């Protein structure tokens, strides 16, 4: 699976929504349940799934899904 699909399945799992489709411009205000609590769940699940470790700045810092995807594409080491 590519980064996009893997990330999408993480989103679907965390937000418990099988119909959720992510896109590059998407950010927290676009998903009703994406509050600061859900954000922590999301970031932790992404760390596990992609085998990455976010820095302090990165944990709160991605502007949107596109930026996150680019980061994961560059840094991801875990196999699908």
């Amino acid at each position, binding site marked *: 699976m590519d980064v996009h699909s893997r990330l999408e399945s993480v989103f679907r799992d965390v937000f*418990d929504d*099988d119909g959720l489709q992510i896109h590059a411009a998407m950010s927290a205000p676009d998903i009703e349940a994406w509050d600061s*609590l859900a954000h922590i*769940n999301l970031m*932790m699940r992404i760390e*596990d799934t992609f085998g990455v470790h976010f820095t*302090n700045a990165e*944990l709160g810092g991605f502007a949107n899904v596109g930026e996150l995807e680019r980061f994961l594409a560059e840094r991801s080491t875990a196999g699908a």
Partner: protein
Amino acid sequence: VIVVDSGPGVRRDLVAEADALRAGGDAVGALGLYTAAAAEYENPPAALCVKLARIYHRLGSLADAHQWVMRVVDGGDDFVSWQAAAAVLGACADESWSAARHARVAVLGSYTTTQFVPLLQLAARRVGVALDTYECAYGQYRQEILDPASSLYRFGPDFIVLMVHERELDLPAISETPDQEIERELARWTTLWDVAAQHSTARVVQCLFAPPSVEPLGHLAARLTGSRQHMLHALNLRLGDAAGNRVSVVDCARLASRVGLEHWFDARYWHLAKHAVAPAMQPLLARHTAAVLAAELGLTRKCLVLDLDNTLWGGVVGEDGAGGVQIGGTAVGEAFADFQQTLLDYKRKGLLLAICSKNNLADAREPFETRPDMRLSLGDFACFVADWRPKAEQVNDVAHQLDLGLDSLVFVDDNPAERELIRQSLPEVEVLTLPDEPAQFSVALAEHPLLETRALTAEDAQRAGQYAARARILASREAATSLDAFHRSLEMEAVVAPFTDADLPRIAQLISKSNQFNLTTRRHSVQRLEEFRQDPHCVHFSLRLRDRFTDHGLVSVLIALQRGTALDIDTWLMSCRVIGRTVEAAMFGELCHAAERRGCDRIDGTYIRSSKNGMVADLFERFGFERARGGDEAVVRWEYDLSDHGSIASPFIQTGSAVDMNDGRS
């Protein structure tokens, strides 16, 4: 972290296939595949259990959903899966899922506990306790305990859990007078216990303090009685002494050292969201807190029902003979001897030990009589069943002989098939999932949530009740315990200033994020804020707060617009870090001054209800505002007549202005 998989590895393919079916709308098909995947494990991973819980919940099979929610807890300390399971549990709050006990638990934190509370509910369910929970606003534990009229006491808790962390302690890096520092901190906490006992019947559960992983004094800290590290260890010991039988503790220092201080505290989550315990470690903390609650509620299991071959010794006595089984001597034999020693310690703290073995009785007894390295002896067992009946019958026999219910037993057997049989045929019996490695048996036992001990003797346990009663009739130590005294002791200072370029990013951040103390929840853009600054009819200011311990930084923001001789509050919010510090009174005082300087005689306020700002619904009323005509329950308008009421100020906060206020320019 104890996860034992008896299965042959992760069946990702099956799970991925099931995910695809589910996404395509075939819930029943997905359920079949998830179930097949789960069948590969004795304790399926938490993430898989959640998928099953969610799908059963969606299909309306709530009993099955409940079962899988419970299994999440045994499926590993996976924070995100636990959160998801807790959400399913919450969604079924109205279901009559049976629980052995109900308890009202107030969680009072010095750090963010919002995500911990659902985990605690989940972990408590696992040990048979249904919780009603109350959570204080961020960092409000002292105010809530000291104020007899607080919502804490209105909640009527059975337990008050003090989820506090070491940064909360007023201990300097080095002290000339460490004993005094320790006494003062000890008194601060025990006073809270006493006050809680005066105002409620709740049992206090105090978290001890995990030390920080960074020690600037290095190894020198260990040699200096005045080092913070030294004082912190001493304080933990003193708190434990003082707790005695009247207060329960959760020994976070031990939990943290077990997992490693660097894992226990993750600075990233402290900076991001003020989590003093790393989210990944919160399931562990929840399990242990639930275990302490379960012990207080009398749910601790009374008897360990033990297998013999490959559980208490290596090998099979019926084949290897009493002289051939491994106990002591070899590496494997030492591991079994060590486990026996652990069991002996459990017996000493009050658990009964029983044997339940498929062996000839004489064979089963012989190693105890002939092998000198055996730590346990026949006299240690309350009951010794060895015959060829099925294990379920033997376990029933043990319960009968000891006159115990099946719900008093924990079954300990190295054979996964026997464990599965007991799980299915005697569901009341707790079954310990023993790892394959005998050297880890003791760890598995230590992690079982229903083997926590409340007190060593019945008298000790009874004394606990007496302590609570005595504490309640203690005269109130007025000077040390009142909320006023607490506020004064903080030596709070505030600086109020109109919006500046330098502050604008922080102001914009508060405006975009504050939910709880936010009267109107208007999310103004930075550009809009610039417009306010240019508008001569606008009063805008922020407040910085510092106290004896901390500089809290910029924590509150207010924007009001002048309309004739009235100032209309457009935005008023405060960071939840400083709720309960009377900052709101200081802010309102500043607004009154600004209104007076502008010649206004009235202040108008608006409360716009959101899903999260219930805590300020009565704020205007508390300051003496009167409800204005118009509006409805969702948007309530308020008026404050300055000529009638005059201005208000916080008696506890010294307020100064950094710059001239931006008023009188109209």
